[in-house]
């Protein structure tokens, strides 16, 4: 018997995502895929999944699911969301076994805009053009091409009992997902020659704020004006993840997972792959800055980042201990703050 998760409540922004829909970029098909690939991959790797496995991307709107049928191994990671199993607080990144009837709830926490809930083997939703990723604008993938809602049933690909013997409940120690105030690294091009060197220096010295115009397609930032030296209307060319487009209003628009594969504004540069997940985790109102790097540096950063994430399975710490220290840590930091939802905390048993 296959297990499944039933959605009890889904805030705006909860979608099914795998690593993305590739092979059709030339036909205008948006790749979609996770906003923060580092967190998505971490959650999948903690379960022994590869990164093609479909997971739930949860945004700040939160999510609550219940396990049905058979026990399920799940893992979650990304940002500092607050996770609860049937009311009991869990670490921000963990691998656990959900028993039938147990609920799992995520809500936005201290930082981060996206977190991922993966299941051993991945969720088995309809594959459209080689991918289960949801693209909302074209209504493709996921469940009916839309955000998740209450009563959606998400079956898993494989029976989970086969692998459960080698699993233990664990906290995932993934420092690469920690909050990091360092500038986002940028490779210049392809249209950096549409801007004067002075304008580029001003851009790299400036502080930008994420506006509320931030969705899976693009993040609009507000900061110093980035004036074009040669106009802003270019004949359309290809667009890659992280492209920093400068449209007529001189304010940067960073293209994210749901970008169109072609576009018509000058692209000053690209936020490097190693930093794009961290950028995705910004919330409107938060600030950031940028630093120029070479293609070779960007590549080295990406490979190092991938290598680090590949160590996920070696960084699992049995949950009991982890929870205890987490509890102490939390008690020290936020002692005295009362959350009505936490009223049952004192009765928790680990």
């Amino acid at each position, binding site marked *: 018997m296959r297990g499944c998760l039933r959605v009890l409540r889904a805030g705006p922004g909860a979608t099914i995502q795998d690593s993305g829909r590739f092979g*059709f970029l*030339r036909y*205008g098909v948006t790749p979609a895929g996770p906003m923060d690939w580092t967190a998505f991959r971490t959650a999948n790797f903690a379960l022994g999944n590869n990164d093609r496995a479909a997971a739930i991307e949860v945004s700040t709107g939160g999510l609550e699911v219940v396990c049905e049928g058979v026990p399920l191994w799940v893992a979650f990671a990304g940002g500092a969301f607050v996770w609860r199993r049937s009311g009991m607080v869990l670490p921000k990144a963990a691998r656990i076994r959900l028993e039938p009837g147990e609920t799992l709830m995520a809500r936005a926490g201290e930082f981060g805009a996206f977190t991922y809930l993966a299941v051993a083997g991945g969720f088995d939703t309809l594959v459209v053009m080689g991918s289960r990723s949801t693209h909302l604008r074209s209504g493709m993938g996921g469940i009916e091409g839309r955000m998740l809602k209450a009563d959606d049933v998400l079956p898993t690909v494989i029976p989970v009992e086969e692998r459960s013997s080698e699993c233990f409940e664990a906290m995932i120690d993934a420092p690469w997902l920690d909050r990091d105030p360092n500038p986002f690294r940028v490779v210049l*091009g392809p249209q950096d020659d549409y801007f004067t060197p002075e304008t580029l220096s001003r851009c790299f010295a400036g502080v930008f704020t994420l506006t509320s115009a931030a969705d899976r397609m693009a993040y609009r930032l507000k900061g110093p004006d980035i004036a074009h030296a040669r106009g802003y209307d270019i004949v359309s060319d290809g667009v890659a993840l992280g492209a920093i487009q400068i449209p007529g209003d001189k304010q940067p628009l960073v293209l994210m997972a749901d970008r169109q594969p072609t576009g018509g504004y000058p692209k000053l540069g690209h936020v490097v792959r190693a930093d794009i997940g961290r950028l995705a985790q910004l919330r409107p109102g938060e600030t950031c800055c940028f630093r120029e790097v070479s293609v070779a540096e960007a590549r080295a950063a990406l490979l190092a980042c991938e290598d680090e994430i590949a160590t996920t399975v070696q960084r699992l710490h049995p949950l009991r201990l982890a929870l205890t220290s987490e509890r102490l840590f939390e008690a020290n930091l936020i002692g005295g703050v009362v959350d009505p939802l936490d009223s049952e905390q004192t009765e928790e048993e680990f």
Partner: protein
Amino acid sequence: MLSKPRYLPAGESALVVEFGATIDPGIHDCVLALDAAIQHANFEGVTETVPTYRSLMIHFDPRRLAAETLITALAKLEDTLKPARTPPQRWHIPACYDSPHDEDIAEVAAFLGLPRAQIIDLHQGARYRVYMYGFAPGYIFLGGLPPELTIPRRAVPRSPAPPGSLLIAGGQALIASCAMPTGWYGIGRTPVKVFDPRRAKIFLAGIGDEICFERIDGEAFDALSLTAEAGELCARGERLDEL
């Protein structure tokens, strides 16, 4: 041999090979020639290519391929290339310019000072080249619109044009694959589904293919719409090298 391209980085995972900055069949031929050569060469690490009007975007896996290695390999490849298209197809696509599918034609006629019949004749009589896809899945960007039909884009986008809309603006033409708000003008509509993920041939036309419109009336439009909905192509294709 191709005109010397510029190699421009698009991050660490993509490279732009730019042959020019304008919309020009000669530039597009270079883009398509390189695209075909790369597919033929089957480069280790190249994951996907995206031809556009003036450049080819090459997506690759940086773990398997570094940008400088790719550029060296491309430079060698280009010396042996000829700007030619792989045998393109010519698609005959039914087009209806009758009400209610001619939504914006009166507006275009007033702006251009041309009679409605002439707008239809010009649009229907031209031969178009598929330059690229963009905007949304399956949205086809065409070159070859008669210059008499050059009209600037709307300052404010109009309400979503239905799938199959034949749109013009900025000296270009396109075929809409799905309903999206647009700054372009809809002057006709085809019952053909240029994009249908349920069909074996998901996308009708390849980049570089030629497109001709064949005029149909409203009755034929309705009949063909049903056939298209059932999964038929409803467009006739012929290999251009066999003509």
